[in-house]
């Protein structure tokens, strides 16, 4: 069993199975079972098959690349420190398999193909995505039961005031969900940026379908458009980044590929990862030759001109000078632009500042969609791409990413503090946690950020599904009307508590914790390590720690307001009930994973350990460089796992989380502090947070209003000028036609009619000759005869004479 061929086969099939489900439901959905009910079974079966194939791939991987446990204890500080130095010079390339299934287009340097790049990260991501998607498919089969019969949408009002009545769309939901799974897995398996971009846009479209599932609602329709348009803004940057890479380097593939070129000769085409971190520099980042030459184009032109007669001379001269030019700094900006460009796409997709405004509105979609797409998978695609693309990112780009993440995590946390809609709190929480992941990647914590990606996927989808369960029971999203639901919905309350504890990173410090404990700790540790290495950027650690406090506060505020205390609305608490088993089972499954995802199995397998396998080459060591933002030291991740840094970070995480929970309890359980009083005292800040920092109004004023203004201007030109012109031409044509008609009627018809009437009159006049009087006829005969003879005698005298 050669893993190089087995893994692509298994993961390729896992990727395509949801597509089969999509096509099947597309054509036969409404006919699958009564009202399309079995379409849920088809979709779930497909994703479970994908899960099984992903697990098989994981097994194959582990059999070939067994995972070693990562040493975290402080006693091995000096050893691991020495080890990490040794490792940095000897770190092998991460095991990875790459290849192409199908070449769409090959022309010159560009090869667009559908292919794979499989490393430990890919395999893990497949397992996690398919597992969460399976749980959510099962959950949604129960949650979407309203769509199995005709549905009356109470939020849509027709012009006559009645509610909108429509047939159910059960199968369409699972059709879109299957297409989404196919697209997401396409991003995960992709081996080149072009393929990522294709599936990037596909997940965007699926997200549009799913957010706008209740498309007759104006709010849902607008939210879907907003999500897609804001994502497209990010994609604009991504295209620029892709162009920078293609234009300078001629390839968009991650890994090296070999194959016959246009002339049929087997050539090795280096991929992006080995162009930017070549073997020659022990995989340290350097500006690739292509970019240097691209940036120094005028010098290249000079040399080519000098050696115009002998091109091979100019080629060798250029090759000699490339290193000099690199040292002079040519190409740095291009590499920076490439990194920032791809990051822009991730800013859009992963809802970072300033393109986060679409995610809270995306909660208009059904809750399973929020759980799958907008918490665990699609928004994680941005972080995943940053993780995949990490080797190409220069320290300057990483700093930008870190600050973006820090701003995002803080901004979103403050808005979540005052939100009253349960899904909005979770949406802003998602944005905040994504900010954490970006911050982690930016400060050099490759494993930390991606570890948090996986643990967050588990607990955030759990939290969303629990909120869906609550919404299903209470028929409202407003937390101010909930309260005391723990008694009525024990399973939901319990699993949601697990989720809340996971997200705040609860655990016994230094001993054991839930999944979030490990991932959050590693982020804080790396942030602290970075702040110590670069004191001017200490705010990054402060933001992370402050964010942890805010996270704990708002998550437990959510839990207390929903489940603890006394019910605030009697009507709702009377009717609230626990959700059916089909919805509770996935909650339990995800809760178990939210607890154990951070632990390592005996034998060493754990998510962090497996991620360590996939660590990109050259990122294990501490790097110091200074191009654009001054000298930056990106500390090695191993160093944050040991000694004082690890202790400080753990204690800080625990302290901030505990403080947050305590404050939430004081305000919402023990009622020592009144939330209304606090809101009153900090009125301006409270209003600012409640209005979501006025971002929607700001974007509305800067972008939406001008565009609407231009649109109305264009519309008025269209109606006032172009339409008037056309109308004028039409009017002129009609007038000419009128004249023509007059000529036709009066002159031509008149002529014909006059001829006819003249003929008629002539006939009538001639008729008068026929008097009927015989004697008159006789006279005419006689006179005629005489006249004829007279005329004959006058003109024909000669013949008469004879």
């Amino acid at each position, binding site marked *: 069993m050669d893993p190089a061929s087995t893994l692509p086969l298994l993961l390729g099939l896992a990727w395509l199975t949801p597509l089969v489900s999509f096509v099947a439901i597309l054509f036969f959905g409404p006919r699958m079972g009564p009202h399309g009910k079995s379409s849920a079974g088809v979709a779930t079966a497909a994703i479970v098959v994908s899960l099984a194939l992903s697990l098989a791939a994981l097994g194959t991987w582990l059999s070939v690349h067994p995972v070693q446990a990562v040493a975290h204890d402080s006693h091995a500080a000096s050893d691991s420190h020495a080890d990490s130095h040794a490792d940095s010079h000897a770190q092998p390339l991460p095991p990875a398999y790459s290849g192409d299934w199908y070449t769409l287009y090959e022309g010159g340097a560009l090869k667009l193909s559908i292919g794979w790049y499989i490393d430990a990260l890919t395999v893990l991501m497949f397992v996690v995505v398919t597992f969460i998607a399976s749980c959510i498919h099962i959950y949604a089969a129960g949650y979407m039961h309203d769509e199995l019969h005709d549905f009356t949408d109470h939020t849509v009002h027709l012009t006559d005031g009645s509610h909108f009545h429509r047939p159910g769309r059960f199968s369409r939901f699972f059709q879109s969900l299957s297409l989404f799974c196919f697209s997401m897995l396409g991003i995960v398996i992709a081996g080149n940026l072009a393929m990522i971009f294709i599936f990037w846009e596909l997940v965007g479209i699926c997200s549009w379908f799913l957010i706008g599932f209740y498309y007759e609602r104006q709010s849902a329709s607008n939210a879907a458009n907003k999500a897609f348009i804001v994502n497209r803004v990010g994609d604009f940057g991504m295209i620029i980044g892709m162009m920078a890479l293609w234009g300078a380097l001629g390839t968009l593939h991650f890994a090296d590929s070999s194959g016959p070129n246009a002339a049929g000769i087997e050539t090795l085409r280096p991929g992006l990862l080995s162009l930017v971190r070549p073997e020659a520099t022990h995989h340290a980042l350097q500006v690739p030759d292509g970019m240097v030459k691209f940036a120094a184009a005028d010098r290249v032109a000079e040399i080519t001109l000098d050696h115009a007669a002998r091109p091979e001379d100019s080629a060798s001269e250029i090759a000699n000078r490339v290193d000099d030019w690199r040292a002079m700094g040519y190409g740095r900006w291009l590499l920076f632009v490439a990194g920032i460009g791809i990051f822009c796409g991730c800013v859009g997709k992963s809802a970072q500042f300033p393109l986060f405004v679409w995610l809270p509105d995306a909660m208009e979609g059904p809750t399973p969609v929020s759980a799958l797409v907008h918490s665990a998978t699609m928004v994680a695609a941005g972080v995943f791409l940053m993780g995949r693309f990490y080797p190409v990112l220069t320290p300057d780009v990483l700093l930008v990413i870190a600050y973006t993440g820090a701003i995002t995590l803080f901004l979103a946390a403050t808005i979540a503090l005052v939100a009253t809609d349960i899904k909005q709190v979770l949406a802003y929480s998602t944005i905040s946690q994504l900010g954490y992941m970006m911050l982690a990647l930016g400060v050099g914590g490759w494993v930390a950020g991606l570890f948090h990606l996986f643990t967050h996927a588990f607990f955030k989808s759990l939290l969303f599904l629990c909120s869906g369960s609550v919404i299903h029971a209470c028929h409202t999203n407003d937390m101010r009307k909930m309260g005391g639901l723990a008694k009525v919905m024990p399973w939901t309350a319990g699993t949601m508590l697990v989720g809340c504890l996971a997200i705040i990173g609860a655990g016994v410090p230094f001993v054991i914790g839930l999944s979030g404990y490990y991932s959050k700790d590693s982020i804080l540790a790396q942030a602290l390590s970075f702040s110590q290495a670069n004191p001017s950027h200490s705010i990054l650690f402060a933001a992370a720690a402050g964010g942890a406090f805010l996270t704990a506060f708002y998550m437990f505020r959510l839990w207390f307001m929903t489940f603890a205390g006394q019910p605030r609305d009697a009507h709702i608490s009377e009717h609230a009930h626990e959700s059916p088993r089909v919805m509770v089972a996935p909650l339990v499954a995800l809760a178990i994973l939210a607890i154990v995802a951070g632990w390592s199995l005996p034998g060493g397998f754990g998510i962090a350990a497996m991620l360590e396998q996939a660590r990109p080459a050259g990122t294990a060591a501490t790097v110091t460089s200074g191009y654009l933002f001054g000298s930056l030291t990106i500390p090695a991740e191993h160093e944050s796992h040991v000694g004082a840094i690890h202790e400080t970070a753990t204690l800080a995480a625990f302290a901030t989380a505990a403080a947050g929970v305590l404050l939430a309890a004081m305000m919402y359980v023990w009622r020592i502090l009144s939330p209304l009083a606090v809101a009153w005292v900090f009125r301006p800040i409270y209003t600012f947070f409640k209005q979501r920092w006025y971002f929607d109004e700001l974007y509305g004023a800067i972008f939406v209003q001008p565009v609407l203004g231009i649109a109305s201007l264009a519309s008025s030109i269209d109606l006032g000028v172009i339409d008037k012109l056309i109308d004028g031409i039409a009017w002129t044509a009609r007038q000419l036609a009128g004249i023509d008609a007059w000529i036709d009627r009066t002159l031509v018809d008149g002529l014909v009619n006059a001829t006819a009437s003249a003929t008629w009159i002539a006939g009538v006049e001639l008729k008068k000759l026929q008097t*009927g009087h015989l*004697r008159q006829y*006789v006279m005419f005969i006689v006179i005629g005869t005489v006249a004829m003879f007279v005329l004959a005698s006058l003109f024909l005298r000669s013949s008469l004479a004879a």
Partner: protein
Amino acid sequence: MNPTAPLCAAGFFASGVLSDPVSVTHYLVVGAILFTSGVVCMAVKRNALGILMGIELVLNGANVNFIAFGSPYLRGEGSASIGLDGEAIALFVILLAAAEAAVALAITLNFYNNHSTVDIDQADDLQG
């Protein structure tokens, strides 16, 4: 009648035509007078039978013309035979006149059956 009429006529013609030997001209004149009488009778008469008589006169006038031109003696050529060509044609004409008169009388009879009169001024049904 004026008893001096023949004397006046004789006197008038004695200096002209009447003193010549009888020739075609005399016959033509007679024929013309008959013809004209006949035509006038046809034109003037209201009675259908009167018109028939007029037709007869016309035909007989034509007959006289035939006689005149048919005789070589009258034409002054003088020959041994009298020449009865004219008379032969006149005979045909008389025959045809009789036939035509029969037909015309039949028409008149039918007309009388329909209109109870032979006044041709009543026969204006075929007007336009």
